[in-house]
């Protein structure tokens, strides 16, 4: 053992002996900003170009200064830290831009009329999305009614009953279903109902079926995870009391997992409520209110936003304003659903489950 001490690595210690002072990175950042602003004054360019310039200058400055003072290893380390932070800020850029534009431009038509009127007999200004909002609620509700029982029972099968080849096949196919592109789900619903009702079929229930195809695997995955978290001791205790398996699942396992399953289902709804492509194919669009999902085209909020944007009417600005407001309402719905999901998991989670 004593021979090891003779070959002590010396370089890291030497390099670390002269670390940069705390204030140096801040000073470099200020310097980079100044350089970028000067360049902007000379060359012009938008705020994002300036920020990019500042980021590049900062990375280069950091590397040069740190290398001169601390050596190349620390210089690389500092450069990577800067690059990683910049990557994160870069990801926030589209998010803030998107939320900002949707909020500001969507506010123009975010009024009572938007929720009270339909697009019936409206070409230019005015009108609303009442028919589309009701259609979205109906179709998503129907999709939930289809996919939650199937998804939940499949999860119960996989966790409590499934073994052997069938269970493996189902697990695999649920994975496959997760990856189905939404437009293919729409084509499937169309192909299915075209066989039943003839070509060119468009109706709300078809949209619900397409959404259910997209939603079921999400429900299965979420419920499966939650059921697996239920401690085996609870099942054992129930069996020891002579309770049959199905009552154990209904009265012991499901109540414990209920909060998690509700959270997963809410997130699944949030995922499909903004789907446009399948509804464009099978539910179509109409400018009037249609309350019957069994017949006739049915408007939904995403498709409404799509058509308001692509066929804005005359004058076009009114249609584009409606598209932004529809986008705003969609984002609000999705955010509320996400919030509800988090609240469910926070307040109804079983005590001591994790």
């Amino acid at each position, binding site marked *: 053992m004593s021979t090891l001490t003779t070959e002590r*690595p010396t370089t890291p210690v030497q390099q670390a002996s002269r670390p940069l002072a705390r204030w140096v990175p801040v000073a470099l950042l200020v310097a980079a900003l100044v350089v970028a602003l000067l360049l902007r004054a000379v060359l012009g360019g938008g705020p994002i170009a300036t920020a990019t310039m500042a980021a590049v200058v900062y990375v280069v400055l950091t590397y040069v200064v740190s290398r001169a003072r601390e050596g190349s*290893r*620390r210089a690389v*380390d500092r450069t*990577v830290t800067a690059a*990683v*932070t*910049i*990557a*994160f800020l870069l990801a926030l850029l*589209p*998010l803030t*831009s*998107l939320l900002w*534009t*949707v909020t500001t431009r969507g506010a123009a038509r975010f009024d009572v009329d938007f929720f009270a009127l339909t697009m019936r007999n409206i070409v230019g200004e005015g009108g609303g999305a009442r028919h589309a909002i009701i259609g979205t609620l109906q179709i998503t509700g129907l999709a939930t009614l289809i996919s939650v029982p*199937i998804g939940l029972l*499949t999860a119960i*099968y996989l*966790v409590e009953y499934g*073994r052997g080849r*069938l269970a*493996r096949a*189902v697990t695999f*196919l649920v*994975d496959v279903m*997760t*990856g*189905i*592109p939404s437009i*293919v*789900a729409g*084509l*499937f619903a169309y192909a*299915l109902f075209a066989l039943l009702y003839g070509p060119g079929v468009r109706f709300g229930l078809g949209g619900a079926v397409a959404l259910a195809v997209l939603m*079921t695997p999400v429900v299965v995955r979420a419920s499966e995870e939650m059921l*697996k978290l239920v401690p*085996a001791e609870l099942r054992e205790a129930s*069996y020891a009391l*002579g309770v*049959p*398996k*199905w009552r154990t*699942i*209904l009265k012991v396992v499901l109540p414990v997992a209920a909060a998690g399953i509700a959270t997963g289902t809410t997130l699944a709804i*949030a995922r499909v409520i*903004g*789907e*446009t*492509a399948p509804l464009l*194919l099978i539910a179509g669009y109409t400018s009037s209110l249609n309350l019957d999902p069994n017949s006739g085209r049915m408007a939904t909020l*995403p498709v409404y*936003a*799509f058509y308001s944007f692509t066929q804005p009417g005359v004058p076009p600005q009114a249609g*584009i304003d409606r*598209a932004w407001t529809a*986008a705003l309402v969609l984002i609000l719905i*999705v*955010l509320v659903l*996400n919030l509800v999901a988090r609240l469910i998991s926070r307040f109804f989670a079983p005590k001591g489950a994790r």
Partner: protein
Amino acid sequence: MSTPNPTSGLRPRITPPVQGRRGSSPARLGDRVFSGLSTGSGVLILVVLAAVALFLVSESLPALTAAREDVIGGEGFLRYLGPLVFGTLLAAVLALLFAVPLSIGIALFISHYAPRRLARTLGYVVDLLAAIPSVVYGIWGALVLAPYLVPTYRWLSDNLGFLPLFAGPASSTGRTILTAGLVLSVMILPIMSAINREVFLQTPKLHEEASLALGATRWEMIRMTVLPYARSGIVSGAMLGLGRALGETIAVLLVLSASGAVTVNLIGQANPSTIPANIAAQFPEASGLDVNVLVATGLVLFAITFAVNFAARAVLARRADFDGAAG
């Protein structure tokens, strides 16, 4: 296949109490009904997927067997399909090109750089990107991002025009395949950075601490312990993102001004379309054989995404078998 049954791998299965001798008591009946129902649901999933494949095939058969001049474009199905496949792959690959490095950076920032308390919140913020509906991305991309990129495209074609990628002339609307790829990359960032974050966090703490104790800087620690450990996770995350990007419809449709051209010029007026965007654009007004042709392109899309997702899952599964880092 070291774990033959993935669902029971975590804990030993418990047998419920035996109810009486024969299966006649109400409890047994309940058990049979319940297990039948849940097994039936599992089988239903099988049936639905089989039905998806079957109906898609049966609806696309007329397109595959039709005479060449009857298919849209009049040159046969494969000629119609080719440019679309090209455009789909091009847009998705562009999206990956931006999203892979960015998602690794984001994931590293959240898992190893950000203060612990901040990291959770930042994770939620990135997940928020996933919650935004694609039609909103589409409108934003077409009205905000595309006009914003026009000067950049003009600059690219002026200064880098000798590259075929930026040959120009630059699009005056900015609604090019490159813009579509950028929007797609924003859309697949959340799933990719979520997966990367998970695998980065799974790196054994002892490896990291050992490397730091040997005098490694933080980057050297990441390069020598975290990244090698996470490599397969990064690959499969990228492939799942690729699957998403291939199937994305409305955002591409709204952002891209497609002409069906086959070109590698990323910033020009003429852009290839993608399979899903083409279906969504043509389907509402299509009738007769055109519908079958569109369904057939959808079937091809299904096959491509299936292959990509399958490969991604296989990589993940092998990783789980290999180092026991399941989950």
